Every structure is written in structure tokens, then in C-alpha cells.
């Protein structure tokens, strides 16, 4: 395949009539395509090709990494697809991908299923994702417990006075329901991580279609409370320090507090491989944890992993 593509990359100097050139082009592209497919089918053993699939939260990050890595190592092809964490892990269990992306930890049942098929999933933390709760700088409130935020969003507290602020109505802002951040916030904050809890967002929560919408409303409106990925929060908005339980320490989100796990609304993002990675996959994962690759993490609004 490399031989053919090199030959094709340097067009022949002799003059060839257009029809013939088209024919040659067709033949060559056919050959290249057929080489490609034969490589694909052998991708698990081949050292040239990495199949990377899973979480939609990570998909943009994985794409950015893959692009950067391929431009530095042109001999490696990385294909990235989304579909959700479950899809990625299922593909790993069926041994159709080299690396599975997941925004949650692998479940016990999934590990059992994998082992029954001779797969041994190994976990790699590749980035972290933190959600900052933001308010207008004029708002006097700067500390909240997780329970208070849950009560605000579920509609039990409707005035800032209820959490030690001024006498103002609370305007709750959220992302649309199709956003992964929305679901994560629902599970971790509104339901406080309790799977049986059926608490929902209060009906009068404003569902804004973009992060930008939330940020511009919080910037303008002293009644508003919103949330967004830590990397997207501009400096002129006020982030709330959050305590996990009553009487606990209030922690502001930052790269340091996310990495030492004191900030409660943060999660690790994972990649899973079958067994300890070897060869090209190992090189790729090592590169992902390098400072250069972790810089991309910060650029995309996630929290870099500090070793």
C-alpha cells in the first residue's frame, strides 16, 4: 500500500493522454482501496491501524488527538467513532476495536462478560471533565453544597435568600436534554449520584441550546445560575465553591482540585484496551498522556491529567 501511494504521490513526468490518465488513476485508486480493506480486516494484528470507538463526550477530544498524532506519525491511521460509552465497551468486548473510549468506569457485568470472551479490559485515565456552577459576579452567594444546588434545580429553593443571598428569584439555566453534560449534571448533582432517585429538573428551568447562551445570560442576569464545562467558563463570571456535604469544605473548581478529587462535580474520562497495551497502541496512549497531548485536552475545555 505504501509502495503504491508513494508512486501515485509523484505523478509521472511523461505526457499521458487524459483518458489514459483517468484510467490509470482509477486502477491505482482501486488498488489502494483494496490494499486498505485488506489492512482493515487484519487491523487487530497490524501495527499500522488503530480503531478507536466510544463515548460521545470524548469523541471531539479523541478526534483532535488522532489528527495531531497522525500528522506527527503519518504511518499510523487512527479511526475515531462515537456512539456512546456502552457502544465502545461492547466493541472492545467483541474485539473489534483497539481502544474503547468511556466517560464512565466499566461496569462489573461488562468486565465479567469480557473475561468470558477472553478479553481483559485495562483502564487508562486520559483526561478529566469538571462542571463549574456559575453565577453573575453581582450575586453575593459564592458557596453552595451539592444538596442546595440540587434543591435549586429541582425547584425546592426558588429565591436566592434561601441560600444566603439577596431577595431575588432564582433563574435556573441548563443545557438541552440531549447534552451529555445535562445528563451528567442530572445524575451527579440533582440526584446526588443516587440511581433510584427520580428527581427531575424543575419545569421552569431554562433549557438553552448552547454553552454560549448560558454564559451570556449569566453574564447579564444577576438572578441566574448555570453550569458549564470548566474549560468554557470565562474569567468575568463567578464560579461557585461547592461542598460535597453539609459542613464539608467548600472547594472551587480548578485543575488542581479536580486532579486531587476534592471538587465533587468532576469525572474521569477513560480509554480501555484489551490487556496492557503493546506496540503502536502503547505508543499512542503514552503520547496521549504527554504534556503536548494534554494541552489539547485543556484547549477543548476538559481538565488535563497531571501525573
Amino acid at each position, binding site marked *: 500500500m505504501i509502495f503504491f501511494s508513494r508512486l501515485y504521490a509523484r505523478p509521472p513526468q511523461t505526457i499521458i493522454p487524459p483518458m489514459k490518465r483517468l484510467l490509470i488513476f482509477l486502477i491505482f485508486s482501486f488498488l489502494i482501496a483494496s490494499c486498505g480493506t485488506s489492512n482493515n480486516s487484519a487491523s487487530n494484528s497490524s501495527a499500522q491501524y488503530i480503531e478507536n470507538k466510544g463515548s460521545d463526550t470524548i469523541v471531539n477530544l479523541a478526534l483532535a488527538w488522532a489528527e495531531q498524532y497522525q500528522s506527527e506519525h503519518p504511518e499510523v491511521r487512527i479511526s475515531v467513532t462515537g456512539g456512546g460509552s456502552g457502544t465502545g465497551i461492547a466493541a472492545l468486548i467483541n474485539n473489534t476495536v483497539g481502544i474503547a473510549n468511556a466517560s464512565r468506569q466499566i461496569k462489573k457485568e461488562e468486565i465479567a462478560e469480557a473475561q468470558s470472551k477472553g478479553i481483559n479490559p485495562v483502564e487508562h485515565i486520559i483526561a478529566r471533565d469538571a462542571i463549574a456552577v456559575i453565577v453573575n459576579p453581582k450575586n453575593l452567594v459564592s458557596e453552595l453544597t451539592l444538596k442546595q444546588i440540587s434543591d435549586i434545580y429541582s425547584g425546592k429553593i426558588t429565591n436566592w435568600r434561601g441560600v444566603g443571598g439577596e431577595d431575588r428569584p432564582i433563574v435556573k439555566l441548563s443545557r438541552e*436534554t440531549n447534552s451529555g453534560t445535562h445528563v451528567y449534571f442530572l445524575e451527579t448533582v440533582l440526584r446526588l449520584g443516587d440511581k433510584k432517585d427520580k428527581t*427531575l429538573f424543575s419545569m421552569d428551568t431554562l433549557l438553552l*441550546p448552547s454553552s454560549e447562551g448560558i454564559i451570556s*445570560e449569566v453574564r447579564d442576569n444577576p438572578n441566574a445560575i448555570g453550569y458549564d464545562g470548566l474549560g468554557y467558563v470565562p474569567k468575568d463570571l463567578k464560579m461557585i465553591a461547592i461542598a460535597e456535604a453539609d459542613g464539608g469544605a467548600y472547594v472551587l473548581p480548578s485543575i488542581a482540585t479536580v486532579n486531587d478529587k476534592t471538587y465533587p462535580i468532576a469525572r474521569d474520562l477513560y480509554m480501555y484496551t484489551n490487556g496492557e497495551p503493546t506496540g503502536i497502541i502503547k505508543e499512542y496512549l503514552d503520547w496521549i498522556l504527554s504534556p503536548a497531548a494534554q494541552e489539547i485536552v485543556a484547549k477543548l475545555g476538559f481538565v488535563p491529567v497531571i501525573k
Partner: protein
Amino acid sequence: MEKSLSWREFIITRLIQGAGYSAIVFVGLIFFFLLREGLPALGDVDITSLLSVRWYPIEDYFGILPLITGSLIITLGAALIAVPFGIGAAVYISEIAPRWMREILKPLVELLGGLPSVVLGFLGILVLSPYIRVFLNLPTGLTAFTGSLLLGGIAVPTIVSVAEDALDSVPRAYREGAWALGATKWQTIWRVTLPAAKSGVLTAVMLGIGRAIGETMTVMMVTGNAPVLATKLGSIFSPVRTMTATIAAEMGEVANGSAHYHVLFFIGMMLFLISLAVNIIASSVVFRAKKRAERILS
């Protein structure tokens, strides 16, 4: 020679006929597609659940009532703003304004009509909604009222443009007749010109309302999208979620063939039926008015 002429005649007639029928065919196909994708929603979701007041599709709450009331209240607000304003502007341009003024105003209004709605939405978020929040002392400026104002602004150019054409086509003799009888300018406009142009003005209003109810981008940006049932007129000052914004925001991520997918198409079907109803009412009013006029004339 004659034969080729009749051939040409035949082909051209058929082409024009085809173009005419194609409109019906397309509407029919669209409605068929909406029915095919939307009706299964009735099987997937209980009708009582569809008529409930909670819209939270990721946990299988599919109450579409808040979305319907949201769309209706915004459209009603937009109509209340756009109709008097639009007809007033049309009357001014067609009846009162001097010629030079008219030549400036008409293209300007048409330019306003070509403004992309996302631009209006952007202005709405950055300028209008903060101002409304402070001025009316509301918790947030992202309300149905903000949406109504902007939608009114979107509907006005359509209404002005069509209504002005209708007023313009009223024969000059009508006005001269009225003046000869000693009617003032206002009396002429109110009692003669406007009634004479009634069907065109009504078409203008319906087109404007149709534009408002189908508008998506602007309302998605400025109305806050909270699916709260609008039960009273005061709801216009709180956030609402419209049918169009719901479809736009959720269709991209929905799993093909799921209950949520079918319900979204069901909402599309409802929108289609609402605009169909508006059009039927409008044309029946026009039709009845014509009949009466014919009776009087005969």
C-alpha cells in the same frame, strides 16, 4: 406548421399543469411522510401521557401540551404586535406617504424581510432581552414576550409588503368616488380602501402569522425553552418552549425510530395541521366575503 404549433401548445400546457399539480403532490407527500413517522407515536406513548404537562423526553415524559400552548401564546403575541403595526405601515406607504417617501420605505421594508432570523435572535439575546428584564422587572428577559416582539418584527415586513400590494391595486376611482362624496382621508381609508382590499389584507395577515408560527431559530434563542404550561395571559412574561424549537433542538440527537423520534414527528404533524387550519379559516373568510360582494353587485 399548424401541427407543430398544437404540439407545442400541448407540451407547454402539460408542463404548466404539472407545475401546478406538483405543489399539491409535494404537500401530499410531506403530509404522508409526517403521518407515517408521527402516527406511531400514538402507539409508543399513551394518549394521556401525550396530553400531560411534563416534557422531559430523556426520561420518557412526552407531554406536548406545554409546547402547544407555548407556540400559541408566542404567535398570539406576535400577531397582536404585527397586525396593527403592519397594516398601519401598509396604509401609510400606500395611501398617505408622498411618492419619494414611498420609494424609500418600500425597499427598506423588503430589506427587513430578508434579514436572517438568526441575526434577529442574536440581537434579541444581546440587546432586547436584558432591556426587557430591567424595564419590566422580570426574573429573566428570556420570555415569550421577547419572542413575540421579535416574531412580530419578522412578520411585519411580510404583512406590509402583501397588504401594500393589495391596497395599491384598489382602483383609484373608489377613492375619488369617496372624496367626491365628501369623505375625509381617514374615512376613505377605513370605509372604502381597506374593505375593498380586504381579501389581500387578510392574506397578508395569514402569511405573517404563518411566518411567525413556523419560525424556529429566533424563538429558540430568546424564549428560554422551559416547557411550562401557559395557562394565563400573564404567562407571556415567563419563559416558554415552542413546538418548532423542540423539534430543532432535539431532532439532531434522537435515536431513529424511538418513541421520542415519533413524538417529534407527531409535533411536526400538529404544526402542519395548525397552519392548515389557519389557512382554511382565512380562505373561507375571504370566500364568504367575496360571495357577499357578488350578491350585492348582482
